């Protein structure tokens, strides 16, 4: 509870639109395995307003993925509650939340288009609509010409774009991304970051983005949540008050360095 003092006060609500809001209240999670129990997360509370871009950083094993899985409804928290779009999640709801995973996790037996259509086909959406929407999503991620390729014919970055299109195809107000670009090379990672920003600015979705890269987190987000490990706790919320679009100068500037320094200190503590 002492945490509350450390955590800076939640930012004022930007809108009253609940559709893309995520609220995490006193959430904790304990994994039970044959070899014992692991307390992955403890007493996490935060709220994300509709349309905000939030990053989560923290040391390896602090429970970032677990937290994201719980928000996605893939894992049930052992304690606390989570609401997305104002309603609790008892199971995954792809119309509310799209997820993009670290390794693109595309189905190798489907074409890029069919991979993007996959969520729609699960709900028996009409063929024509399915196709249109997949085309739109692929277009949005800049892969219009690659619809009929199979994953093994695509580069790592392109695969992630397909995964992104798959996350966007049902137009969910919330998008969760778990280290989506960790497996990519530095250059591709930078372009993919810009790509996500461009899409975010066009669609104004709520994005919760897990990453190991502090610069990446600052570059992309409105706010950075800092977790520490064993068990994972929320130790800081850092508002990124840098102007957008964030140019090279801004990224190399003093304020940027200060923010980075602060986050780094919090992670180490």
């Amino acid at each position, binding site marked *: 509870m002492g945490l509350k003092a450390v955590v800076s006060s939640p930012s004022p609500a930007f809108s009253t639109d609940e559709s893309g809001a995520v609220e995490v209240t006193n959430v904790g999670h304990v994994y039970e395995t044959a070899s014992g129990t692991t307390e992955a997360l403890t007493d996490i509370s935060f709220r994300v307003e509709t349309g905000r871009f939030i990053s989560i950083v923290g040391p390896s094993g602090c429970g970032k993925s677990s937290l994201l899985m719980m928000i*996605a*409804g*893939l894992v049930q928290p052992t304690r606390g509650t989570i609401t997305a779009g104002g309603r609790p999640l008892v*199971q*995954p*709801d*792809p119309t509310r939340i799209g*997820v993009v*995973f670290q*390794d693109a*996790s595309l*189905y*190798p*037996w489907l074409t890029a288009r069919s991979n993007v259509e*996959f*969520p729609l086909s*699960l*709900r028996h959406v009409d063929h024509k609509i399915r196709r249109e929407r997949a085309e739109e999503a692929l277009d949005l991620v800049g892969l219009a010409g690659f619809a009929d390729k*199979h*994953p*093994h014919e695509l580069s790592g970055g392109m695969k992630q774009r397909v995964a992104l299109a798959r996350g966007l195809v049902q137009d969910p107000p919330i998008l969760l991304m778990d280290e989506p670009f960790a497996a990519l090379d530095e250059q591709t990672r930078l372009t993919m970051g810009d790509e996500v920003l461009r899409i975010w600015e066009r669609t104004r979705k709520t994005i919760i983005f897990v990453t190991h890269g502090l610069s990446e987190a600052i570059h992309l987000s409105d706010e950075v949540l800092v977790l520490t490990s064993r068990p994972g706790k929320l130790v800081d919320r850092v508002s990124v008050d840098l102007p957008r679009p964030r140019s090279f100068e801004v990224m190399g500037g003093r304020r940027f360095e200060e923010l980075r320094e602060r986050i780094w200190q919090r992670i180490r503590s």
Partner: protein
Amino acid sequence: MNTATVRNTGARSIPAPVARAALVAALIAVWQVAPTVGLLDPRLLPPPSVVGPMIVQLFGEAGFRGHLATTLLETLVAFLVSVPVGFIMAILIGENKYASDIFKPLVFFVFSIPKSIFLPLFIFAFGISFHQKVAFGVFSTLFIVMMLSFAAIESVRRDHLVVARSYGATRMQTVLRVYLPGMTPVLLEAIRVSMIFNFTGILLAEMYASREGLGNVIEQWGQGFQLDRLMATIVVIAAIAIVFNETIRALESRCEHWRE
């Protein structure tokens, strides 16, 4: 597996398929020449020029066609029983951690002991019959099917399942659209290898005790020194086995990239 790397062993190297064809041709040539020039007794090793026409002749005989049909039918029935049964048993065991811990070592053990020596027991149980052949074929195949099915189930990537769940797939959808295609490459391999065991089991059962089937005729022709007929039948059996094997292998290589 990786036919792409076949070339490039040197500037003057010939492509592997050509070399292979040449090797096979050379072997056939030796087989033809050795008995004809008197190096080997042509009654003991009938050359291709005798065996080839004999194959044609055999297919003209209703009796031989009947034996062939019997063997193929037994093989097919045993296969159609053992593959689904083995697969379903493997799923039932593989899906549950506790059941896996108990049964996998047992299945592995039974898999690794020789099956042929149990042949007499099948005769005690079923008499010398179609049922006995099929039962023995199933017995010889079931455990390899289970072993390979375990591998197939394990080959499905966990993240593929998580994606399906995060997009709200039902249990049925997950099975049909993720598990099944995900397992296909390994499953094809399972079908291919199981067929080797199955075909061997049926032929052995026929050779051991039966009144009909290819196994029965080769045993008879061997004892009667009709080596031209024996060789011709061996070639037919080998051809069936190789064609089936290579067909499945071709399918496997088509979905090779699914394994990533």
